[in-house]
C-alpha cells in the first residue's frame, strides 16, 4: 500500500515540479496562469497521496519529508513525468499523455475498497478531467495549426512514445493491490486509453507512432538521469539546512 501511494504521489510531485519550471517563461500570459493552475492542482494532490503514504508507513514522515528527503532510487513515478520540458510542444504532449492515463487511472481507483484511497481519488479525478480537457483541446488546435506547430507536436509524440507503455505494465505490486481491492490493474486501462488517444490524434491530424517498445523502471526506482538533477534543485534547501523549519 505504501509503495502504491508513492507511485501516485510521486507522479504528481514530479510532474507538478516540471510544470512549475515554466513559471514566467511560457509563450503567453494566459499560459503562465493555466500552467500555474495545473501545477497547483498537482502539488495539492501530492500532499494528499504522500500524506497518506507517510501515515501508512508509520515512521513519522509527512508529505514534505517524503518529497524532500528521499533520493532518486526511492522515487516511484513513471518515467514520462520526469522527462524534461524541452519545447512547449513536448510539455503539452507529455501533459496530454499523462492526463489521459491519469484521468482513467483515478476513475478506476474511485472503485477502491479503501475509503482513504477512494476519497483522494474522488477529489483528484475532477481536477484530472479538467486537465485532460485542456490538454486535449491544445493538442487538437496545435496539430491543426501551422505546419510548424503540427511538426513540433508530431516530434513530441514520437519522442515521448517510448514512455507510454510503462503506464500500463502490471507488476507484482499491481497484482497485490488489485487482489486487495485497493486499485485495479493498470493494464485494464489500455484499451480505453488507446481509443481516446486515437480519436484525439486523428482530430489533431497527428500520426500515432509505430512500435510498442516501452522504457521502464520508474515505478521500481530506476530513473532517467534527469530526475537526479530535478531533485538536486527541488530538495536543496531542506537538504542544506536540515534543522530549519520553513
Amino acid at each position, binding site marked *: 500500500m505504501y509503495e502504491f501511494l508513492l507511485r501516485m504521489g510521486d507522479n504528481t*510531485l514530479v510532474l507538478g515540479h516540471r510544470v512549475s519550471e515554466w513559471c514566467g517563461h511560457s509563450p503567453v500570459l494566459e499560459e503562465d*496562469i493555466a500552467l500555474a493552475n495545473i501545477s497547483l492542482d498537482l502539488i495539492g494532490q501530492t*500532499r494528499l497521496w504522500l500524506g497518506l503514504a507517510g501515515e501508512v508507513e508509520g515512521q513519522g514522515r509527512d508529505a514534505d519529508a517524503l518529497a524532500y528527503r528521499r533520493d532518486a532510487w526511492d522515487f516511484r513515478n513513471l518515467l514520462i513525468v520526469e522527462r524534461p520540458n524541452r519545447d512547449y510542444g513536448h510539455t503539452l504532449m507529455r501533459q496530454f499523455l499523462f492526463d489521459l492515463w491519469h484521468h482513467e487511472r483515478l476513475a478506476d481507483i474511485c472503485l477502491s475498497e479503501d475509503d482513504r484511497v477512494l476519497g483522494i481519488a474522488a477529489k483528484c479525478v475532477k481536477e484530472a478531467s479538467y486537465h485532460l480537457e485542456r490538454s486535449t483541446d491544445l493538442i487538437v488546435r496545435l496539430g491543426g495549426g501551422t505546419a510548424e506547430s503540427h511538426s513540433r507536436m508530431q516530434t513530441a509524440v514520437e519522442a515521448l512514445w517510448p514512455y507510454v507503455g510503462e503506464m500500463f505494465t502490471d507488476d507484482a505490486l499491481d497484482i497485490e493491490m488489485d487482489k486487495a481491492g485497493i486499485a485495479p490493474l493498470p493494464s485494464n486501462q489500455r484499451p480505453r486509453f488507446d481509443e481516446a488517444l486515437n480519436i484525439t490524434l486523428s482530430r489533431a491530424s497527428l500520426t500515432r507512432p509505430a512500435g510498442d517498445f516501452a522504457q521502464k523502471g520508474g515505478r521500481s526506482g530506476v530513473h532517467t538521469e534527469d530526475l537526479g538533477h530535478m531533485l538536486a534543485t*527541488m530538495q536543496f534547501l531542506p537538504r542544506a539546512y536540515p534543522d530549519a523549519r520553513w
Partner: protein
Amino acid sequence: MYAQTVQSTGRKVKSLEEMSDQERAFQARIDAGEKIEPKDWMPDGYRKTLVRQISQHAHSEVVGQLPEGNWITRAPTLERKAILLAKVQDEAGHGLYLYSAAETLGVSRADLIDDLLAGRAKYSSIFNYPTLNWADMGAVGWLVDGAAIINQVALQRTSYGPYSRAMVRICKEESFHARQGFDIMMKMVAGTAAQKAMAQDALNRLWWPALMMFGPPDKDSVHSAQSMAWKIKVMTNDEGRQKFVDQTIPQIEYLGLDVPDKAARKNPKTGHYSFVDPDWDEFFAVLKGYGPCNADRMLARNKAHDDGAWFREGLLAYAEKQTIAAE
C-alpha cells in the same frame, strides 16, 4: 512604484484660463471626482500619459514574475511552493487586467509587449535586483508588495475608470501577497541562525531598492504635476515613501532584525521617521539598464516570447481555419 518615472506632457500644467472649453470641462469633471470612461473625450496628453503609466505598471507585473519565479523550483516545502506559485500566478493576472485597461485607450497589448521586449518601455526598477536566498521570497512579498500596496490603494482613486477598477481587483489580492511574505520572514527569524542571517541579508539588500520604488524625490520629479492635476497620480513620491518607512520600521523591529538605515529615527512630535535617501545615482543607472539583472530579465522575457511564437501562431492559424470552415 510600478510606474516610477512616467513621462507626462513635458509642459507645465495649464491654468484654467489657458484651457480650451473642452479641456476646462474635462478638468472640472476630474476635480469633481468623476471617473473618465473610455468613450469620453480626453486631452491627448491625458491619454498618452495614462498609456505610459498603465503599460509600465503592466510590464512590471509581468517582469515581476521572474525574481520570485527564480525560487519556485527551490521552495522548501510543498505548501510554500503552492503559495509562491499562486502568488506569482496572481501577478500574471495583474498584468492581464492592466493590459486590458490600457487597451481601452486604443493601444494593443501586442504593441505594448513589443515595446517592452525591444527595450523601449520601462518597468519598475525593483525587478532588476536579484533574489539570492529563500528569505528574499519573504522580503519581496513583505517589502515590494507592501510598497506596491501603498501606491495601488491610492490609485483606486485614480481618475480613469478602467484603471481604477483594475486597482480595486488587484488590491484585494495584494494583501495576501504581503501577508505570505511577512509570514515567511516570521518563520525565518524564529528559525536557525542561518535562517535569521538569510532574513537580515534579504532585508539589507532590498531595503534601499524598495525605497526607490516610489520614484525620485518630488523636487526632481519633473512629470508629477500634470499627472497629479489629472489625478492619474494621486499621491506624491515622497508621501508614499514616508508612509512606507513609517509602517515598515516597526515591523522590522517586531521581527527583531536590524534596520538597514542606521540613522532612521522617529520624530516624537510628528510620529514620522526620518530616513536616509537611497542612492539616486544607482536608481537612475538601473532605469538606464545598468541594474544587476536588467539584461537577464529582458533576455528571459525575449526568450519566452520568441520560443513561444510558433505556439501563438499555431493557435491563431487553427482559429482562422475554423472561421473559414464555418463560413
